[in-house]
């Protein structure tokens, strides 16, 4: 396929020079100041999923442009490992230069995408539509008639390409018929859309597949994920690589625990995405939420809150060495405390040897229940055990202390 693709992640032209939005909020395609397209979704960032999809469709040359530092902040991994990346302050100018570079290489058509919206475009159908109508550039719209900020353009038509890029891939220089995407579209405007995309992927409503092994129907687990034997993962759900689910934690209802995230003991995640390197504290109940980077977006309440308490929502260190060091330090701090507690409390709770001794030790304020008062009537031989009285058997019923 004589087609290249340029993916631009971040601001529209004129909104800012870098991919990072200066005013983070629930909308505006950012979460905690990071473009949503760079956040992990079932093991890979959305931009990786899009690039992989393009490669699977036969496009070899894919260029992704992100704002400086946005990729590293998002997941601690370099986007260059999968997609050729041109970090640029001037994203749209860099996109124009990349497009002209493709033109000089002899590439005929270039697909331009801004993420932003996630759309599953059938490239064969798009290319056929574009060539059959002999258009210099074709903008791509959704079924509702909204622009998807994507277009295909003949690389040699520089003025058409420049016009498209200057207008944020929303309008073409010459009147042309737009291509309507009949398939899956998600605008990815806020955390709610990110959660919906995760749900749709886990429920196989879109082409995104979780990155991991399907250990049982509907449950995907990445490599080196550690799931405690008492933790429960109920389908559909995803646990990313190196993620940790501690004892008695529950992950259910399309929840996704991304790579290196940690869910502490007894915590329940329901319809929740835990972003990479996020620690979710013990005994919590997170539902209908996206959690990460010290923030939690509650989708039902439509509220984004910053949680400063690391016992509730913290961050796991990106550096493996630092994580190991921290783990060793916490273990070293834990063991002496337990030893001191053991010494202070004593090894075992002392138990009275006999029933009479137990009765003698009973506090004077505590009165016996009426039915446990010693009866004046003689106990029959059949009820009388060889060692214990009848009332002692009742005491034993509640345990051995």
């Amino acid at each position: 396929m004589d087609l290249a693709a340029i993916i631009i992640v971040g601001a529209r032209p004129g909104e800012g020079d870098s991919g990072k939005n200066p005013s983070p909020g629930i909308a505006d395609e950012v979460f905690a100041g990071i473009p949503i397209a760079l956040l992990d979704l079932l093991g890979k960032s959305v931009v990786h999923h899009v690039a992989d999809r393009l490669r699977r469709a036969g496009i070899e040359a894919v260029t992704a442009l992100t704002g400086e530092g946005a990729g590293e902040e998002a997941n601690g991994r370099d986007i260059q490992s999968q997609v050729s990346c041109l970090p640029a302050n001037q994203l749209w100018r860099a996109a124009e230069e990349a497009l002209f570079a493709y033109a000089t290489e002899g590439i005929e058509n270039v697909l331009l995408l801004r993420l932003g919206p996630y759309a599953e475009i059938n490239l064969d159908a798009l290319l056929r539509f574009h060539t059959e109508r002999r258009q210099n550039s074709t903008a791509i719209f959704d079924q509702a008639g909204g622009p998807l900020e994507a277009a295909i353009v003949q690389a040699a038509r520089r003025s058409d390409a420049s016009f498209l890029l200057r207008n944020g891939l929303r309008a073409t220089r010459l009147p042309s018929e737009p291509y309507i995407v009949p398939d899956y579209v998600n605008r990815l405007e806020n955390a709610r859309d990110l959660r919906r995309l995760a749900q749709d992927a886990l429920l196989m409503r879109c082409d995104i597949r979780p990155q991991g092994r399907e250990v049982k129907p509907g449950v995907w687990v990445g490599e080196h994920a550690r799931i405690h034997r008492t933790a429960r993962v109920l389908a559909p759900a995803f646990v990313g690589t190196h993620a940790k689910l501690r004892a008695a934690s529950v992950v259910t209802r399309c929840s996704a625990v991304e790579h290196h995230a940690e869910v502490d003991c007894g915590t329940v995640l329901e319809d929740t995405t835990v972003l990479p390197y996020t620690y979710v504290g013990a005994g919590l109940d997170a539902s209908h939420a996206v959690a990460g980077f010290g923030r939690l977006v509650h989708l039902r309440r439509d509220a984004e809150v910053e949680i400063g308490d690391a016992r509730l929502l913290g961050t796991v260190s990106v550096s493996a060495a630092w994580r190991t060091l921290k783990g060793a330090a916490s273990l070293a701090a834990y063991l002496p405390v337990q030893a001191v507690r053991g010494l202070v409390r004593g090894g075992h709770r002392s138990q009275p040897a006999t029933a009479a001794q137990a009765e003698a030790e009973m506090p004077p304020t505590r009165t016996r229940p009426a039915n446990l008062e010693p009866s004046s009537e003689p106990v029959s031989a059949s009820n009388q055990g060889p060692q214990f009285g009848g009332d002692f058997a009742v005491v034993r019923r509640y345990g051995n202390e």
Partner: protein
Amino acid sequence: MGTSRPVIVKRMPDRINLQQAREFQREVQPLMRSDRPQLVFDFSAVRRMDAAGVDMLLECMSDVMKHDGDLKLAALSPHAAVVLELTRADRLFEIYETVSDAVRSFSGFLPNAMRKYAEWAVTAGSAADPRDEAPSNLAA
């Protein structure tokens, strides 16, 4: 059935961390030790709250219960609501949308959930089967 005992409304500080929580608890301690105290904590100003704040609320609740009183929460800010839900503490308290609702709730005989049900039953009419569309908080 009414009550002659006063209902005390206490406004929570905008940030509830360990230090603020201790100070607040010290302030309300005398109120909680009175006979059958009736307290409402107003959360409308709370912008940040951490686990220490939740601990403090649980301790206050425990103190109030020891004196046969009641503690209710009102006007939860989004942050407080999210933290209380996250820590499952919201299940332990009666929570009202406004302070006046919370204050009024002390003067009624019916607990909040029952009152909601009673209101619903009046509006739905006596002919309807109450199990058909009972309010969601009564479904269980």
